[in-house]
């Protein structure tokens, strides 16, 4: 789950990190009212789940209320890399003496947490990594040990931060690590972390990605889930608890298991087709799950055929077959379906499907064969429509 900047700052504030006072605004009027409450000058900042806001004109300094009105009007509705700005964060502007960078994420290769700290903040860390890798001080933290003050102090020294910034940074890094671990984050990043002319170290931006698997420990994260960026199909799938990624082809894909679903998407491409989606129905393929999956696929107007690819392990063949039959009784499917069913109790499953087979509900013995047929069906469905038109 990606947080907006303002949500990230609120998250950091819970762990005692210094952030600027601010308010979220959905309209120009709200932005103006917020600025009047906060006091001038303020920053007007687009809230989107993507980078490059500044370059796109999504971050502006406002010295007066008129500036706030003008910038908010320009930024709200702005398209930043396909993300339309629906809300702006109005925040008291800060004086900046220096800009740093700090982050924690999981280093999967090292199986440890990776902390990165640099005196060269305010720019993309990837650029710093490429042009001046020595400017990034890295620490690998064993999750069992955590990050104590001595380690944080040595790390800040390694990053060559000026004396004036040391105490504040040591304090913030420990709090940031606590937020990262206790908050079950995949990533916490402050860029820039600033030193003000009066000597305070302060959080000026926040990028936070939370681990969706850890929601059971954090009931309050539901609020972040509501603000995720998803297209209409993805929203429908998410509401049904399905793992769905929208693609732009014509073959709807339903498979069990992420690997098999990815592989199904690959195979459809390999035989010359184009998948409309990735959809992993996970372990249990009962009628409810299958009906939900078919509904999601069915609502996608681009879908011309559907490829259901199930290999039974945790899912038993007869459950899958009954699920498909039950779902078809509940959902009227427009596109022809090709099913490939293998694995645990596959024969029992195929026997259940057999009497229901027709031109629009077919079964194929292998993954490749099923993909070919689904792609053919998608192609001929497209042709039929062209003829009618």
């Amino acid at each position: 789950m990606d947080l907006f900047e303002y949500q990230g700052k609120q998250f950091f504030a819970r762990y005692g990190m210094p952030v600027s006072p601010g308010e979220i605004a959905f309209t120009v009027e709200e932005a103006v009212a917020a600025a009047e409450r906060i006091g001038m000058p303020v920053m007007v900042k687009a809230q989107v789940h993507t980078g490059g806001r500044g370059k796109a004109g999504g971050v502006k300094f406002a010295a007066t209320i008129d500036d706030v009105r003008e910038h908010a009007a320009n930024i709200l509705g702005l398209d930043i890399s396909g993300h339309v700005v629906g809300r702006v964060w109005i925040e008291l502007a800060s004086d900046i003496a220096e800009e740093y960078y700090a982050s924690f994420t999981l280093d999967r290769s090292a199986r440890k947490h990776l902390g990165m700290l640099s005196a060269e903040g305010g720019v993309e860390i990837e650029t710093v990594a490429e042009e001046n890798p020595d400017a990034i001080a890295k620490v690998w933290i064993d999750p069992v040990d955590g990050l104590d003050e001595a380690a944080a102090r040595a790390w800040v020294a390694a990053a060559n931060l000026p004396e004036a910034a040391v105490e504040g940074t040591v304090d913030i890094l420990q709090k940031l690590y606590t937020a990262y671990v206790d908050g079950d984050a995949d990533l916490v990043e402050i860029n820039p972390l600033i030193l003000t002319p009066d000597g305070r170290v302060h959080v000026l931006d926040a990028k936070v990605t939370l681990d969706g698997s850890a929601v059971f420990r954090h009931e309050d994260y539901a609020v972040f889930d509501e603000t995720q960026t998803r297209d209409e199909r993805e929203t429908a799938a998410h509401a049904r608890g399905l793992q769905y990624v929208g693609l732009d082809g014509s073959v709807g894909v339903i498979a069990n298991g992420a690997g098999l679903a990815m592989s199904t998407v690959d195979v459809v491409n390999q035989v010359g087709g184009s998948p409309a989606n990735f959809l992993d129905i996970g372990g249990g393929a009962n009628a409810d799950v299958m009906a939900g999956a078919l509904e999601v696929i069915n609502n996608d107007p681009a879908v011309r055929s559907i490829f259901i690819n199930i290999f039974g392990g945790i899912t038993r063949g007869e459950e899958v077959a009954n699920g498909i039959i039950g779902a078809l009784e509940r959902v009227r499917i427009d596109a022809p379906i090709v099913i490939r069913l293998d694995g645990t109790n596959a024969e029992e499953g195929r026997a259940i499907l057999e009497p229901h087979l027709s031109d629009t509900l077919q079964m194929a013995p292998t993954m490749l064969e099923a993909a070919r047929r689904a792609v053919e069906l998608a192609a001929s469905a497209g042709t039929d429509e062209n003829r009618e038109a």
Partner: protein
Amino acid sequence: MSIFVDSDTKVVYQGLTGSQGRYYGLLNRDYGTQVVAGTNPRKAGTDVDGIPVYATVAEAVAETGATASCIFIPAPGVHDAVMEAARGGVEFIVAITEGVPAHDEADLYNRLRRDFPDVRLLGPNCPGIISPGECNIGITAGHIALPGGPVGIVSRSGTLTYQALYELKEKGIGCTTCVGIGGDPVPGTSFIDCLAAFEADPETKAVMMIGEIGGSAEEEAAEFIADHMTKPVSAYVAGVTAPPGKKMGHAGAIVSGGRGTAAAKMDALRDAGVRIGLNPTEAGEHMADIVADLG
């Protein structure tokens, strides 16, 4: 021969009294696995179809001599369940459960290495392990695996693991051991752990590897293969056509910033001398060629 588990492996199921634990525990027993015990502190003293239930893994080990554990506990309890198993004295732990938080996995990996260096964790979020004809722990359908070798399989994906077994069986090729390491960010057992074990196993003559997008486990495996493997390897990497920045179901399967792509992984493996299939069937065909050349 096999790696990690064989006919002598005695397994205690943590969560045997739950619906999933019971279903797969009994299925594993039917396959021939020595399912010696279950645990549930609230149901100690009862049994599941004749399998005794104990309060803790330690008790189960003391009473039955269990050497491995299989975990069918919901995600919030997996961290504690793994540590209980390690403290309880088993040497091999299979965690099937999906949806375990990444921080729990990172902590488990490092905690086990420090306090229980001889204990191996497989998973979480994995299908388990099967040494066909000897032992099946987890959710793999036993009948799709042909016993006898000469191929060892290691896979990051559950259903593709079954697909790989099935492709080989269709060609009459057996398997020494098939290990599903799972697709999560910090798996207890890595490709390299399995490749090293297969390299050392005299019955395994070739290895089939199933990878997927995200992370750098395949690239690390390629390095290991180039430096340490004498046995031939075939591989398939899922997610060739996955769009960047999108999570493909697994916590691990995401392409970010051009890193972790299927193309990069396939290149690294190819450079290490691995024969790459562009789909699971083709990887199976490559393996059939390799096996035929073994003579």
